[in-house]
């Protein structure tokens, strides 16, 4: 702890304890359920790839066929590898094609067949996980070769043209202009698709489809940039939506470096069923842990629907929950890009000092996490001149409070998805602020008993109160009642619930087995 806020360590420990109490039942739920996307992720690790002529991935066709024959609750690995053995083939994708054509039936093997299917599945999935391991080692090598960014915070930029072939030059231009991390935003509709599109795409709305091929193309382009710039440029995408586990898996396979991966974002902002989300989330985090991927959580989003002052403590609570879930799934502190944002109405008196209080609170509660500091969006308007100014103060708050990852704000936030020039102006803004005031944190000492310390301690207090209340009910109830982002999301509603199943006694998931064995 840098100790600028005088936080009471007893209260901090109590907050963590309460977060565990609130989160554990959800973990139990996640450990005892599976989802279609978890199972598809397993099959992807086992080597199923490609899509049918309508663009529906073979993993989807295969899981559908298995579920039709034996249901989801046993996991698909054993029925699939049993069928493979029975069909006498080794190519899982070929099996999927046959299944789609209706020429294979699935069953639950017993005895020796079961044992054989299990170990074949484990071998195949293990090969997939080793590919992820290799990509992680490759990242480590490249970082050693090209180096990490010289400064903290890392500079994180979004590209979002909808067309991977426009995204690439824009991402490279951004990297050249100083971006350390490039995120390719997804098309508006993608998170509700219950499959991952295939191939290179050029037709997204307000974002580009996340596909394995797009991942590959962008990673290759940024590898080029890394070489050119002598600095490893990281790539980010989204492990969220109905395909969260598969996204995590593809990210691991294509050496993405960070993934947006929040425990509640999908529930709140995509109306995805809470149970589906928590199950998917645990698996995806286990993959991220293995792949050495840094996750970015989404607390910033709450402040776009809820007030950033009144609901500041909900951000803290969510960060504590995200931390608990992440640790439980095997992620280390350095992988926790916990989110928070500069979203206080700029008309509020002392708004900048309030921002500093909130940002510093997060910094001191999570001293070893590379916090992700998100720019103003809600109070950005078409006044782009004012917008660039606000972004400058956001950057300054980031520098003063030692944030780890700075998502660069765009002056056109209220107008368009970022233009090439918006990004350039935004990076110039960041460079100015970090260059001119990068060391100012030395001289920033919240007055003892003053506004900033009082505010930070007040938010911590409110967070504790809320955690107490959640503990008395349950987290699912709290979510149902609109605690986060004032979105009310009951546990029995929302998209994707049909794709959830409780584990049967013989549930088998070789991926989880391997990942948990390692942890």
């Amino acid at each position, binding site marked *: 702890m840098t100790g600028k806020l005088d936080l009471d360590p007893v209260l901090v420990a109590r907050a963590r304890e309460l977060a565990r109490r609130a989160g554990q039942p959800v973990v139990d739920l996640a450990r005892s359920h599976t989802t279609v996307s978890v199972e598809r992720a397993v099959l992807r690790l086992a080597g199923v790839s490609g899509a049918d002529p309508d663009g529906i991935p073979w993993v989807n066709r295969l899981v559908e066929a298995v579920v039709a024959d034996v249901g989801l609750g046993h996991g698909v690995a054993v029925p699939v590898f049993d069928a493979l053995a029975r069909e006498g083939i080794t190519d899982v994708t070929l099996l999927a094609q046959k299944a789609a054509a209706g020429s294979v039936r699935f069953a639950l093997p017993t005895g020796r067949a079961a044992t054989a299917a299990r170990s074949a599945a484990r071998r195949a999935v293990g090969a997939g996980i080793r590919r992820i391991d290799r990509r992680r080692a490759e990242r480590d090598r490249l970082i050693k070769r090209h180096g990490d960014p010289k400064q903290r915070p890392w500079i994180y930029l979004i590209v979002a043209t*909808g067309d991977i072939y426009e995204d690439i*030059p824009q991402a490279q231009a951004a990297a050249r*202009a100083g971006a350390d991390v490039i995120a390719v935003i997804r098309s*508006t509709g993608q998170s509700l698709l219950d499959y991952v599109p295939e191939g290179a795409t050029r037709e997204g*709305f307000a974002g580009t489809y996340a596909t394995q091929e797009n991942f590959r193309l962008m990673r290759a382009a940024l590898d080029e940039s890394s070489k050119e710039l002598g600095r490893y440029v990281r790539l980010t995408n989204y492990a969220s939506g109905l395909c969260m586990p598969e996204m995590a898996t593809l990210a691991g396979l294509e050496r993405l470096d960070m993934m947006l991966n929040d425990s509640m974002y999908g529930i709140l902002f995509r109306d995805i069923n809470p149970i589906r989300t928590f199950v998917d989330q645990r698996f995806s985090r286990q993959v991220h842990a293995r792949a050495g991927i840094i996750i970015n959580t989404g607390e910033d989003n709450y402040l*776009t*629907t809820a007030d950033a002052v009144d609901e500041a403590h909900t951000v803290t609570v969510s960060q504590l929950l995200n931390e608990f879930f992440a640790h439980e799934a095997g992620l280390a502190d350095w992988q926790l890009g916990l989110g928070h944002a500069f979203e206080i109405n700029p008309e509020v008196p002392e708004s900048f000092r309030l921002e500093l209080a909130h940002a510093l609170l997060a910094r001191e509660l999570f001293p070893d996490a590379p916090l992700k500091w998100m720019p103003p969006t809600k109070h950005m308007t078409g006044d782009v001149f004012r917008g660039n100014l606000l972004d400058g103060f956001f950057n300054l708050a980031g520098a003063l409070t030692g944030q780890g990852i700075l998502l660069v704000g765009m002056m056109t936030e209220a107008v368009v998805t970022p233009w090439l020039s918006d990004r350039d102006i935004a990076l110039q803004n960041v460079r100015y602020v970090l260059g001119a005031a990068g060391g100012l944190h030395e001289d920033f000492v919240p007055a003892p008993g003053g506004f900033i310390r009082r505010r930070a301690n007040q938010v911590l207090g409110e967070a504790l109160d809320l955690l107490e209340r959640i503990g008395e009910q349950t987290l699912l109830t709290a979510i149902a009642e609109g605690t986060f982002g004032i979105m009310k999301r009951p546990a029995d509603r929302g998209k994707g619930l049909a794709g959830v199943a409780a584990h049967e006694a013989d549930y088998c998931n070789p991926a989880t087995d391997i990942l948990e064995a390692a942890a």
Partner: protein
Amino acid sequence: MSRQIVRPYGDTTGDGMVQVSFTLPVAHDKRAEGAAVQLANRMGIDPAMLVHAKPMGDGFTFFVVYGRVNHLVDLDAVQVVERDFPLLSAKEVNTVVKQRLRRKLSVVGACIGTDAHTVGIDAILNVKGIAGEKGLEYYRELKVTNLGAQVSVPELVEAARAEKADAVLVSQVVTQRDAHLHNTREMSAAFREAMPAGRRPLLIVGGPRFDETMTDELGVDRIFGRGTTPGEVASYLVHALITQRKATT
């Protein structure tokens, strides 16, 4: 009355001064700067002062230009959708509905397509409202069904039917590749197909980037843009569904 003609104002009446910025897909050199001035000239800026040129990435240059635009602005020729209905208080709205419609007015709202931006439609519908005005749920005589985000057009039509909607309120915020226009056209076409003219609910769309004059092109009855308040919407509903309708029939 003589026509009202004005020009942009920098610091002197009639100076016509404007500021422009843009990127050209050309590497920065004198020719690129000349190209920027050419574009400014074509926009009617003459003389054009190129005050900033910055190379970006590979083969792009960003420019800032200041100068005098020689177009005139004819205020009489301006096309706007003026509010052509009286602004009523919540109480007045309730009274008119109660006395003249004699049943609750049913409103169905949604954010359609893959758009998940509900803050705008919620500002209009939820009790909380916006800018100090309560939303439509607060109106005793309105029955509000807010379907939330990412509602498909068939779902919306179905809900409108089920709720016997007098009006359907649709929000669209994402505009990249004209998503908002496509979605709105799809929606209005579906209602035209599903219901006969007399039985169709009033179709209203809103969002920060709509052009309010495009109702005909989009097949809707009314468009509300940036900064709309619930009171305006409620007043319009009363006007379009009750006052005006009764008046003309």
